[in-house]
């Protein structure tokens, strides 16, 4: 009954907006007035069109016009009116979500004249731009020292990697050309699965505040991506970059090639193809200090880890097909493959037995857009989208170590032991040891010889696979309510399918020693839906955006314990903005909700070596995670070319998924909507546009993110033991910093360009002519972490009460344009962490330092020695001549103990406690 009522509500909301098409996620608008150049009177009935004339509008009696749903990009505008000379204006830039103002003054003549001054709207001051957006353009991706969209977005104020405004990973959603894309299965712990080749982008924006009711599936941020359409003539770019020339210490095995080409085919059809292929022998380079023991193989070669290679393949294609004069069909396909070997310190001396993972994602979409003609009385844009999104993930042991073909490119698919069992979700077959998985044995190949800390043969025995697939149907309508208003409405329906499989310690039969949990598997087909209605109006300098969004999801599963009820939520949002004294003030309030990761609906079997439990009970009745966001922002342009933005926000998080105890056993728990929190913060953004050859962007973020739990997989840490009674205490509410509670963050981006034909000449060549430079500096305070008593599960102080040290990096890109033989291009050098700063990004929870202290080491030594005190004879593969100090043919006694000590120090090297080292690459690009 509830499900039926919810569907009815969806239909109702859809019908409320049914008169209008919306979809403007990938689009902006062009608006303004047309007037007589001599008299200044408005011209009614003037036809204003963009580009090929497929989009346009007619001015009203006040001379005003508004063209909606113009995709982001650069356009030519044509204005025609009887008795006036036509006007053509090139280079008009339209950004997603903003209105570009363009006023025209027409000469009363029949002869075309040169373009007249056009005033474009200032996006900084645009009162209709109520969202807090930080935009990354295609040019940014090319001119800044960033390689991917994710890296570019991480430069945004409030971003900590892929966490935004203190939110956990997974509280964001992607909007690709107006289409929502999210890994609803495990967004909080896994990747999206697809990556856009950067050359396909027109622009991308990170939206962090009360975003439009058009958007859902997110609490903390939206990443709104607009991709290019194929151009009117063939063009493209190809580039190759590598770190091969730099040699030891700087060469991390990187090779990357990107390619993009677009242009017309036939019949008005335009095509675009793009590829981004990258591989690195050490896919996660670290700046960990070299070990002190010269016998350690890292001693002389500390910068490259074996069995840590990764490769990514991203392919995209797009067809833009005009249908008649008012419809456009866009077909888009994206395929991403990311496969990684994962360095495991335990397999340091036998790296071929280390784990690996593979993620493959596919997005295929069709987008049909209909727009009424310029003279239509009721401007309407309708966007119908149908998309298939799938993501396939597997992690485990490779059947064989791949061979490299070029750099770290293998050109081959990773295959995993037991993959067929996982994909078949055969939990019965998985009760026995999985064929091909062997128990790990102590390694005989370390310089220390001792049978401790390092492993060989076998593996960790992990096998995890999941598949998420959805078919999304989405209708968006934008309805023109006069020259000062728009109404947006839409509805979406998403059929999803979830399949999971997990097996831990797969080399042992289930139940061995009461420590091998059974394999878990699940399959269910959730149905999600949403509808929204939103109005955006401008009255003089006052802009109002208000909307209501309805979200629901129904797991439609027969998972154990499911009550069979759908979950639903209404999310009202409103933003008011106005321009006062040259500044735009925006206040917004909104409620946001997202379905929980579906992984929390099902049982989880995982090898959590830090706790005794390896099993977490799923909860199929989880509801929406939600938040209320309040924001006040001011945007100003104190001088031409200089913009300042100040944002203050409060975000109340509620119903976040966390592990909650079941009964009195602290290791028996279930996922629940039990976590609440608050994020407060302020952001200051300053921008000096590129003028006189240089520009600056700077942002500072001050925020505090508190909640009652820090991770869904960790038991709510509010549990304490009463020191007097020994009872378990669960306080009503104790908030502590969230994992991404970065209090201070300062980002500075400086760009400059040497004018063409300037600089000193050398043999007739000016090497600095046209040279572009970009420098990014980041200074961030440390993230929180939780201290534990050494060797115990007992917390020291409140959760997340300790802080990592501050971090800083400086990145630089130098690019020198070239024209050789009529071919345009450039060479560039990109250096990350230019100063080679060794940033600590993680520490041990027992010591609060990257590495262990002597007490920890000696504890390891004693435990290992007690387990294997036998002396090692000469012929043993564990015998080491350097360890046999007295030369009697045995490593024994103190000789043996010293080897255990060296091995313990080796095994506990805090390799991944440090951030990236200095990474450099040189590249060459060709534009055509």
């Amino acid at each position: 009954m509830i499900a039926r009522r919810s569907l009815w509500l969806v239909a109702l909301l859809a019908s409320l907006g049914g008169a209008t098409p919306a979809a403007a996620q990938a689009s902006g608008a062009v608006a303004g007035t047309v007037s007589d150049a001599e008299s200044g009177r408005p011209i009614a009935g003037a036809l204003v069109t963009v580009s090929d004339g497929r989009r346009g509008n007619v001015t009203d009696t006040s001379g005003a016009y508004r063209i909606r749903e113009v995709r982001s990009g650069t356009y030519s505008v044509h204005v025609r009116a009887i008795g006036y000379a036509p006007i053509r204006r090139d280079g008009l830039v339209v950004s997603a979500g903003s209105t570009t103002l363009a006023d025209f003054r027409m000469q009363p003549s029949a002869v075309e004249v040169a373009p007249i001054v056009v005033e474009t709207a200032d996006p900084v001051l645009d009162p209709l731009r109520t969202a807090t957006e930080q935009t990354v353009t295609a040019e940014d991706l090319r001119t800044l020292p960033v390689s991917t969209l994710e890296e570019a977005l991480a430069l945004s104020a409030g971003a900590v990697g892929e966490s935004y405004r203190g939110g956990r990973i997974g509280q964001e959603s992607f909007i690709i050309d107006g289409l929502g894309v999210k890994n609803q299965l495990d967004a909080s712990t896994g990747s999206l699965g697809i990556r856009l080749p950067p050359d396909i982008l027109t622009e991308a924006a990170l939206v962090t505040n009360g975003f439009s009711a058009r958007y859902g599936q997110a609490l903390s941020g939206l990443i709104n991506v607009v991709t290019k359409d194929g151009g009117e003539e063939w063009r493209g770019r190809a580039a190759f970059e590598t770190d091969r020339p730099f040699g030891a210490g700087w060469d991390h095995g990187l090779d990357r090639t990107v390619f993009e080409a677009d242009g017309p085919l036939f019949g008005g059809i335009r095509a675009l193809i793009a590829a981004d292929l990258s591989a690195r022998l050490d896919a996660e380079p670290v700046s960990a200090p070299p070990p002190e023991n010269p016998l350690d193989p890292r001693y002389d070669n500390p910068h490259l880890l074996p069995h840590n290679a990764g490769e990514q393949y991203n392919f995209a294609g797009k067809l833009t097909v005009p249908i008649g004069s008012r419809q456009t069909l866009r077909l888009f396909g994206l395929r991403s493959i990311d496969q990684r070997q994962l360095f495991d310190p335990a397999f340091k001396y036998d790296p071929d037995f280390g784990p690996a993972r593979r993620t493959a994602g596919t997005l295929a979409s069709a987008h049909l857009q209909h727009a009424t003609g310029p003279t239509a009385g009721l401007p309407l844009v309708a966007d119908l989208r149908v998309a298939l999104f799938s993501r396939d993930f597997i992690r485990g042991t490779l059947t064989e170590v791949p061979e490299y073909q070029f750099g770290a490119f293998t050109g081959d698919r990773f295959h995993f032991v037991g993959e067929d069992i996982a994909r078949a979700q055969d939990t019965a077959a998985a009760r026995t040891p999985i064929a091909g998985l062997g128990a790990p044995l102590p390694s005989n190949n370390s310089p220390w010889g001792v049978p401790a800390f390092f492993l060989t043969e076998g593996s960790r025995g992990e096998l995890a696979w999941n598949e998420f697939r959805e078919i999304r149907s989405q209708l968006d309508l934008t309805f023109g309510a006069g020259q000062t208003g728009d109404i947006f409405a839409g509805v979406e329906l998403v059929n999803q399918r979830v399949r999971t499989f997990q097996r831990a310690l797969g080399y042992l039969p289930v139940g061995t020693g009461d420590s091998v949990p059974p394999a878990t598997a699940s399959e269910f087909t959730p149905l999600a839906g949403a509808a929204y209605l939103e109005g955006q109006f401008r009255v003089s300098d006052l802009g109002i955006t208000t909307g209501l969004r309805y979200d629901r999801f129904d797991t439609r599963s027969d998972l154990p314990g499911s009550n069979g009820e759908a979950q639903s939520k209404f999310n009202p949002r409103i933003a008011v903005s106005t321009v006062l004294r040259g500044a735009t003030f925006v206040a917004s309030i909104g409620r946001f909700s997202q379905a929980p990761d579906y992984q929390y609906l099902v049982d989880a079997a995982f090898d959590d070596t830090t706790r005794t439990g390896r099993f977490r009970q799923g909860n199929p009745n989880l509801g929406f995670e939600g938040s209320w966001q309040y924001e006040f922002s001011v945007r100003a342009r104190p001088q031409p070319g200089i913009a300042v933005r100040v944002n203050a926000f409060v975000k109340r998080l509620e119903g976040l998924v966390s592990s909650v105890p079941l009964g009195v056993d602290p290791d028996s728990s279930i996922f629940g909507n039990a976590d609440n929190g608050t994020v407060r913060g302020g952001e200051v953004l300053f921008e000096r546009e590129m003028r006189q050859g240089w520009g600056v962007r700077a942002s500072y973020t001050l925020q505090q993110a508190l909640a009652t739990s820090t991770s869904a997989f960790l038991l709510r840490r509010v549990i304490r033991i009463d020191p007097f009674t020994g009872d378990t205490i669960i306080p009503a509410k104790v908030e502590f910093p969230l994992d991404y509670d970065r209090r201070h963050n300062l980002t500075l981006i400086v760009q400059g360009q040497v004018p063409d034909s300037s600089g000193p000449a050398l043999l007739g060549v000016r090497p600095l002519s046209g040279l572009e430079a970009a420098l990014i500096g980041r200074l961030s305070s440390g993230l929180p972490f939780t201290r534990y008593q050494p060797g115990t599960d007992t917390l020291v102080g409140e959760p997340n009460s300790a802080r990592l040290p501050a971090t800083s990096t400086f990145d630089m890109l130098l690019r020198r344009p070239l024209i050789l033989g009529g071919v345009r291009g450039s060479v560039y050098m990109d250096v990350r962490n230019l100063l080679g700063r060794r940033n600590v990004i993680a520490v041990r929870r027992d010591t609060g330092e990257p590495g262990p202290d002597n007490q920890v080491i000696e504890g390891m030594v004693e435990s290992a020695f007690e387990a294997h005190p036998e002396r090692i004879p000469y012929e043993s593969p564990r015998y080491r001549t350097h360890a046999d100090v007295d030369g009697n043919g045995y490593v024994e006694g103190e000789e043996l103990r010293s080897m255990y000590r060296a091995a313990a120090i080796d095994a506990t090297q805090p390799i991944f406690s440090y951030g990236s080292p200095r990474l450099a690459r040189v590249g060459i690009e060709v534009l055509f």
Partner: protein
Amino acid sequence: MRRLLVALSCVAGACSHEEPFAVTDPHVQGPRTSGSPIRLTYNDADDRTAAWLPDGSAVLYSSERPDLPDADRCLRLMPAGGGAVFREICPRGVGQADSTHRLESAAVSDDGRLVFLHSASVVGNPKGAFMHLMLGTLADPHSAIQVTNVPYFVPESGRTHGQVSHVQWLSPTRVVFLGEDLFYQGSTFLPDTFSTGLEIMRGEVTGETLTLSLVPGTEYASSVAAGGDDDTIVFTLGGDSRVHRMSLSTGTASVLHDFGPAGIARDVQLRGSTLVAIVGGSVLFQFEDAHGWVQRDEGGALHVVDLATGTAVVHTLPDLLFRRPALSPDGTALVVEVSPEVPVHVGPQSDYNATNHRPDLWLFDLQ
């Protein structure tokens, strides 16, 4: 300019990347001492039943693992000249950790087939072990299959063999070994165990099947070895100083060599004209009421005879005794078990016998 060209070629992908750190071989190379003989193993537990790979590149032997709580015996491969073990074949599988598994008496054929004895018993108690003769390949020993249960009954003699030893390949399809009687005296712990030879068995390998038959005329044999071709064996008998040679196809036997007054010969090996045997020492062939005729053996002297010239060399080491020599394929070296000299016991109630002397392996250069 050259550096610039190198850099440009690198940009074009024409030069290679740096490699991640590689693990250098940390194991010792070669024996600890030089000369002859040299001690190959220093294990505190047993190193036994050595055999050579057909190409003479390595020695395969059974080694007890004192570092494992279940004291398994694994097969190990050591370079022919000594040094660190470079490969170890240990029992795998479910439940292997809660019982003692012993892989012993291994032999490798010219085509890489591996035959060995596998026994599994309760930790600390070998009595009642499950034993099987296993057939597989050296390349994939963990896929070896059981071809014969041990004990097995021999219809031709009416005896039951409780143990096998001296396993030898005569050809890629034929093995011979010594069938033994296995006794557990008194208490059940290891030192009480002893075995004595009963008769020689031959096995014909067809695919994954081993068909056994008795070699007639070998009653109370104490050792057996390949006789130079796939039809000939050499063997010794309990209480006998002679080495016999027999044609399997005809059953014709002759005396190859007689050590005479040197004592009881056993553990014979033959390569070309080089004959090796353990002779005399701490050995006793006697009738015991509880066991019948048995040969109790604590080891003896190592005799090397050149049958072509008739020259003989006797090797001894102070306070040490030899057992189970293994001649290299070319006959120029041998590996032999060496253990402390102890007197052979004379009564059935002894709590000590020859099967557990913590022997180590030594290498003799015969050139």
